[in-house]
């Protein structure tokens, strides 16, 4: 069982527990990474329901391949690499058009508000911030996917450059150059709101 005690175990220790036969301990891994992975995937595919499905598939893939995880490496990097490969494969198969964010409601028509987490602003601040954030989010969505992925990993998921290089399989120098270039592109696109 995923006990309170397991919550203070390192990822590697939790994985050892799962590999030793305690399947329920995998819930600790899901709990720790569900939000980060879902956000990363959401910003890549730009569809809420689809991002949740892909996030679930990433966890299932990770579980199926858990025995191949090398504890000499950081588990989060390994997990995000699975997510990156899986999401990019999915996008290639879909040949996803560069379309605006699509968030269908339960009926399948119209849109609903994204379930964003509150940061405790007043309603007025919240509205202004929401507008600004919406513009920035759109500008990120419009970046070419190879740049978008890095911005998401860096600024939404707070991954280090070294981790980003391992996750994407790009040389460290390329990661840095692309993220710097991506910021310049964002600045260009947001000239009127800054």
């Amino acid at each position, binding site marked *: 069982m995923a006990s309170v005690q397991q919550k203070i175990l390192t990822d590697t220790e939790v994985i050892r527990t*799962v*590999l*030793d*036969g305690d*399947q*329920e301990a*995998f*819930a600790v891994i*899901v*709990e720790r990474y*569900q*939000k*980060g992975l*879902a*956000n990363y995937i*959401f910003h890549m595919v730009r569809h*809420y329901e689809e*991002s*949740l499905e892909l*996030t*679930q598939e990433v*966890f*299932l893939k990770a*579980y*199926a*391949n*858990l*025995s191949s995880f090398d504890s000499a490496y950081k588990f989060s990097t390994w997990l995000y690499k699975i997510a990156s490969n899986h999401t990019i494969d999915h996008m290639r198969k879909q040949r996803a058009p560069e379309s605006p964010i699509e968030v269908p409601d339960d009926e399948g028509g119209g849109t609903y508000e*994204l*379930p*964003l*987490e*509150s*940061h405790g602003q007043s309603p007025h601040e919240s509205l202004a*911030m929401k507008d*600004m*954030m919406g513009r*920035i*989010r759109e500008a*990120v969505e419009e970046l070419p996917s190879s740049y978008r992925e890095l*911005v998401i990993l860096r*600024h*939404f998921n*707070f991954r280090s450059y070294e981790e980003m290089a391992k996750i994407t399989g790009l040389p460290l120098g390329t990661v*840095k150059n692309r*993220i*710097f*270039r991506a*910021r*310049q592109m*964002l*600045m260009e696109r*947001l000239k009127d709101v*800054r």
Partner: protein
Amino acid sequence: MHCRKVLELLPKFIENDFSEEERAAVEAHLKECEECRLEFEAMGRLVDTLESIPPIGVPSSFKEAVMRALPAKKPPGEK
């Protein structure tokens, strides 16, 4: 240092990823060039705002759904 070179280096400054030589040259330029200084400040605000965008929420049932979808109880390391 010219504005063009400074603007190329600004994204690195946001990350504090620069050589001492670059730092001194960019700082000296920013003291004198208001346009580049405004650009530098705008990029700082962009990064701050990017990083304050709230994450999307995950349904409370998500974890249970993943756990239910795991294959029948066989440790993944077991052949």
